């Protein structure tokens, strides 16, 4: 067993931190307040290769491993959740799912521009009337010769109005006996006719992020854009969530770290009853919990990343990491506000943003309740990994980097 990060990992961490420190932290408050995305953020993530960090070089990516992906997400979310969300949907839901399930032609056509940052991707699964119960989605695709005709509405889609390509799961086989066989997944060019989209405003958090809706009205998607087989959509979507949840988990660890660092700084600075509040035990208790939670969150996601590197399915381990880290991040931000007192309640300091940003991740990409059911399912032996037709291959540096 080896817990040490490689030099590549450490340099990746530092690079992401330099980037956020120089370019994101000076402006994030302004854009969060305006409820607008930082205009240059996605472009810079692309230019720096972060949007293709763990995609093989042959598909336009940077050839790093899954641990690097996690470390990058942690660093990005320590600055602002909006950056990590872009990673979750672009890399996690879209690019990695293409890498796992896409045909060689689909990879050349869609993965290469995504991984090189020329195009943005997102994942389109949730609907106004459907979240956790994926199999019950109602957006439909009817086969018509060489096309599928998509109709329906998707909602709570990150980068809905910004992305070029989307991984879209819809219902193709309503008559299938098992609900999970009713779905199919497509890679869709969002600029095609029949698709309208827009932003949702008034979110509690991730206000510098872009979240929206996508409407399909007789959108004619070519058959060759179908990922995998007809009826494989549920499995593909679950794979997408395994990738997405990993980025959410690692990102949430970033919030815990940011809350911890802010609290330590403030607790040493601020005095009450004649001494720095860091010397009060009830403050220390909060700080100790944050530092412990950070350690747990980090270990959990690094282990999930290690499993990904080994090419081992990690639904359970990623579920542990996601549920723990997202809940810990909300708790840490809450404690950080308490430590900051009234200042923490105002946007003078960052911690109130951490709290608002942390809340969503307890809901999306599989709510805590869904994670609990997954974990119970495995613990009770009711759930087992069945081999997939397309498994994510183990990280092989020679393949990834050539």
């Amino acid at each position, binding site marked *: 067993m080896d817990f040490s990060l*490689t*030099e*590549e990992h450490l*340099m*990746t961490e*530092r*690079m992401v931190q*330099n*980037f956020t420190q*120089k370019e994101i932290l000076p402006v994030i408050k302004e854009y969060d307040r305006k409820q607008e995305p930082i205009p240059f953020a996605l472009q810079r993530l692309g230019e*720096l*290769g972060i949007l293709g*960090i763990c995609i093989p070089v042959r598909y336009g990516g*940077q*050839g*790093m491993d899954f641990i*690097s992906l996690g470390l990058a997400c942690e660093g990005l979310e320590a600055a602002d959740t909006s950056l990590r969300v872009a990673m979750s949907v672009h890399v996690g839901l879209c690019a990695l799912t293409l890498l796992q399930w896409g045909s060689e032609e689909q990879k050349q056509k869609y993965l290469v521009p995504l991984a090189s940052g020329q195009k943005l991707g997102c994942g389109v699964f949730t609907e106004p009337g459907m979240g956790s119960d994926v199999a019950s989605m109602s957006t439909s695709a009817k086969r018509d010769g060489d096309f599928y005709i998509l109709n329906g509405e998707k909602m709570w889609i990150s980068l809905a109005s910004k992305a070029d390509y989307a991984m879209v799961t819809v219902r193709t086989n309503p008559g299938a006996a098992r609900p999970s066989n009713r779905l199919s997944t497509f890679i869709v060019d969002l600029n095609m006719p029949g698709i309208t989209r827009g932003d949702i405003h008034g979110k509690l958090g991730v206000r510098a992020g872009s979240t929206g809706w996508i409407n399909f009205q007789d959108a004619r998607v070519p058959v060759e854009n179908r990922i995998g087989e007809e009826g494989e959509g549920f499995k593909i979507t679950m794979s997408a969530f395994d990738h997405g949840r990993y980025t959410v988990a690692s990102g949430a660890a970033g919030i815990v770290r940011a809350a911890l660092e802010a609290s330590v700084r403030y607790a040493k600075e601020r005095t009450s009853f004649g001494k720095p509040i860091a010397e009060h035990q009830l403050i220390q208790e909060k700080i100790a919990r944050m530092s412990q939670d950070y350690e747990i969150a980090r270990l959990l996601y690094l282990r999930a990343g290690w499993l990904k590197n080994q090419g081992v399915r990690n639904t359970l381990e990623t579920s542990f990491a996601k549920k723990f880290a997202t809940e810990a991040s909300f708790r840490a931000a809450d404690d950080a506000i308490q430590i900051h007192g009234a200042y923490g309640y105002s946007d003078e300091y960052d911690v109130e943003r951490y709290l608002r940003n942390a809340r969503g991740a307890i809901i999306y990409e599989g709510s805590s309740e869904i994670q609990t059911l997954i974990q119970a399912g495995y613990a009770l032996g009711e759930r087992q990994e069945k081999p997939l037709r397309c498994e994510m291959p183990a990280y092989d540096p020679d393949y990834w*980097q050539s």
Partner: protein
Amino acid sequence: MKIVACIKQVPDSAAKVVVENGRVFWGDAPLVINPWDEFAVEAALQLKEKHGGTLTVISVGGENEKEAIKHALAMGADDAILIADPALSGLDTQSIAQVLASAIQKIGGVDVAFFGRQAIDSDSGLTPAQTARLLNWPALTLAAVISVEADTIKVDRAIEEGRQVVSAKMPAVVSLVKDYGEPRYPSFMGIRKAARAEVPVWSLANLGISAPTSVIAWPEITNPPSRNVVCEIITGSSPEEIAATLADKILAEKVL
């Protein structure tokens, strides 16, 4: 072109630096490439990208000098040389300049040697000019803008009065200021290359020189006297009188 950038490793600028028992400590602050040297590497890379050639970074120090070198390699330097020798500890700038000049001569055929304007630990800012002098090369220091045409290098130097535009035939030493423009981040490809790079270590014997003798000694390093936080309220019969007293007090603090 054959380009060299001389870099140094220093404690992060945000580090809390203190002296305990005569030794300097910077806590758990990371050692990083001297921030000014990042501009030197950036300028060197831009020159290389425009005119072709290779960039070699040179650093003088112990084994732990690798952070700075790896950073420069990850930014895009082609290769690196670490000059490490037990005889090299506690050298003054003249001695470091001798070592660097010898290394640049040993590399041979160098057109430009880039430096940061100064290191943020010693704050001396002497090494670029001293290395140039030892090489008998012109020193175009404090460069904010750099251009090369044929065998001539031209820079805008940031001086107190504005900018002085100076040109010289290469080879030359150029030191960089912040106005040059933000240094790039390491790329992922660069990170992989840097992580795998075997950095050759040159000893003084490799350079063919004996250990230089430092003539500067620093017998004592101390923490600055702790600040008197008691606020002295300046009073007077008129704003002019208050201002005059205040201005004199500020000047006496020697902070202007």
